[in-house]
């Protein structure tokens, strides 16, 4: 599959224990009269993980990535890539960047784009030719390799955009919303490729506002809101932590207006969230709470379609920590 990775500075000289990416107290202020885009933000991305940065539009995800790859200078704070604070040519060579909008030349063919960026990354000769073929395969765009990119579909453009970031086999891959507005086939292909890269030892940092994507793909996440990290950690740990005391009930009809108030008053039930026909509640003693909830629902003439315990989702965690809906 061509994802096999050459040995590099990372993992040898730099030391295996160093985080791939370390962001310490970064602040980025574009203008003095608005709150900073990044506000004293710190994250640590260990080597070899898929790390997701989640956040609604405007949270500061792109700004953070731009600072990581040297396109923006932070107002304050430090960034270390594999232990290096300066983005020297050696450090830059470890880094693969996949921008949010496909950064490709529309009047060049896919192959010509790969060739150009490959050369810019210092590849030449048979090695360049090998990498171009490998990347065309990874992206599954070989059939259109010699067509101009302007004639590509959106999914093809994004897949090409992805593999241009891989042409030089980076050890750290940074992707900004790699699957936004994309067809399902291209999305699952990209997921599959990212897992393969992970298996080959590449550290992957991606941003997304699709919570399911983060849940399926990422090992660790940071949920960002207004330039800060609201919550961060291992995905399984996060889900487990929010698992035990929640109850989800699907209602069989739209609830009457006084239902929410009645539910709120139940002694055995904690937080109650009623949105549409979807009822979520937290409860330290699920059985008691369930009985109380069902009785109250019955009193209001509402039936139950399904009932589920402890099913936490990043979607819900996100809602809890940011007070915002992940989907714009």
């Amino acid at each position: 599959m061509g994802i096999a990775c050459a040995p590099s500075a990372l993992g040898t000289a730099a030391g295996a224990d160093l985080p791939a990416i370390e962001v310490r107290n970064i602040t980025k202020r574009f203008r003095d009269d608005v709150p900073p885009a990044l506000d004293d933000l710190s994250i640590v991305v260990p080597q070899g993980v898929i790390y997701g940065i989640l956040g609604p539009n405007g949270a500061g995800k792109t700004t953070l990535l731009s600072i990581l790859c040297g396109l923006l200078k932070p107002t304050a704070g430090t960034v270390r890539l594999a232990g290096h604070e300066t983005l020297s040519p050696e450090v830059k060579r470890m880094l693969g960047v996949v921008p949010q909008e496909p950064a490709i030349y529309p009047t060049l063919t896919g192959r010509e784009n790969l060739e150009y960026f490959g050369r810019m990354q210092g590849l030449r000769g048979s090695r360049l030719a090998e990498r171009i073929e490998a990347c065309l395969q990874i992206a599954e765009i070989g059939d259109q390799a010699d067509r101009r990119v302007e004639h590509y579909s959106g999914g093809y453009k994004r897949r090409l955009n992805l593999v241009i970031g891989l042409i030089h086999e980076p050890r750290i891959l940074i992707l900004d919303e790699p699957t936004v507005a994309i067809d399902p086939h291209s999305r699952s292909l990209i997921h599959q490729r990212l897992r393969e890269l992970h298996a080959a030892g590449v550290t992957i940092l991606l941003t997304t506002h699709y919570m399911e994507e983060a849940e399926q793909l990422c090992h660790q996440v940071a949920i960002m809101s207004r330039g800060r990290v609201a919550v961060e950690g291992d995905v399984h740990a996060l889900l487990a932590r929010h698992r035990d005391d929640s109850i989800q009930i699907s209602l069989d009809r739209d609830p009457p207006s006084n239902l929410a108030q009645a539910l709120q008053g139940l002694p055995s039930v904690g937080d109650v969230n009623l949105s549409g026909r979807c009822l979520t509640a937290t409860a330290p003693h699920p059985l008691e709470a369930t009985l109380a909830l069902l009785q109250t629902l019955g009193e209001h003439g509402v039936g139950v379609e399904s009932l589920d315990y402890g099913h936490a989702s990043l979607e819900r965690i996100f809602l809890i920590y940011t007070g915002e809906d992940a989907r714009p």
Partner: protein
Amino acid sequence: MNGNLSRFLASVLKDTRIIARDRQALILFFVMPVLFVLILSLALRDAFGDRPGATFPVLVIAQAGDRVGDSVEASFRTNPHIQLTRMSRATEAEVRAWLVQGRYKFAVLIPDDATGQAQRRVGEIMAQVPPELRIERQVAVRVLVDPALRSDYRKVLEGVLDLALHEVEMRLAREQLEQTLRITQGKDYAPLPDMEQTRLLAPLPAEPVTKGAVGPTPTSVQQNAPAWTLLAMFFLTVPLSVSFIKERDQGSLFRLQTMTVPAWVVLGGKAVPFFVINLIQMASILAVSVHVLPWLGGDPLELGDAPLALLVTGASASLAAIGFGIAVAMYARTTEQAASFSSATVMIMAALGGILVPKTVMPPLMQDLALLSPLSWGLDAFQDVFVRGGGVRDVAPEVLGLLAFSAVCHGIAILRYQGRL
């Protein structure tokens, strides 16, 4: 091969491909300037006085064989700006109608027997007949004129006519004098010298005096060919700056910044194809001016005999234009901004630099201001070669100016690209 050299070549190849695939731009780069030179050189041929262009249809009504009429006709015919028609007879009403219709702008009506009448009058004058006893009057030569004729041109035509009449008067007077002398001196008579042919006070042909260089003024093609070459070159700053901003908008420029690609590789990769386009533009405009223009009835361009000086001038003008375009691109936010700013400044520099209006017709203050425009330096250098027969040494000051301008622009652009400005 050095790593950055390989990157540079890849950059040149990439930008060449992008430009070569942009048909519209190619037409704009090559066809437009050539058409401009052809049209303007032909249209402005007369304004530069290369040829008898602005011609005035003049009508002379005089009896066939009348000496006054012949003389007027002859002197109008020597003037290349006059397109003369002679008729022996027409009524005044007819002449007026022709003037109103615009067939003639200036009509001279010489009465029948004008010569006889003039001869009789000069005879009376020579015989010292007192004015109140003379029988013959002055011959009434009348002039009818189109009121739309510019008054300065009318004065010129009146002057030509007056001179012709004076000449006839002098000749008739001399003949009368000779006749008298023959009678009074008999066999001792010696013919008088031909006074009309031996002028006492001869006005030399006017010498054009231009600021700085005294010498021939450029003809229309000597003005237009280099002027439009330079304008075409500088107009390339528009597509050049736009292509940069497009690259930035497409994100590819940012992607390059995440790699270890030096600024000169990125900027140079664009500069090279545009430089080549500039030289092709120059070659095609000059070739058209030399070979196609005469075929369409214009004067051919004489290239002078310093091809190296032309090449050096063209190359440095191109580098100046490219530097300017890249600097604009580094500061403009949108393609629209880049396009409108660069085209507006290029037009201003062109107007100021004597590209749109020749410097020779500008008042002295404007001629001084023209020196601010790099296009003016380029034009001077080209004309050093075309008009004044100069070589590399003569164009050196202008070429150095263009190279300095280019260096400053490139310097600003590189610092800005690296985020240091």
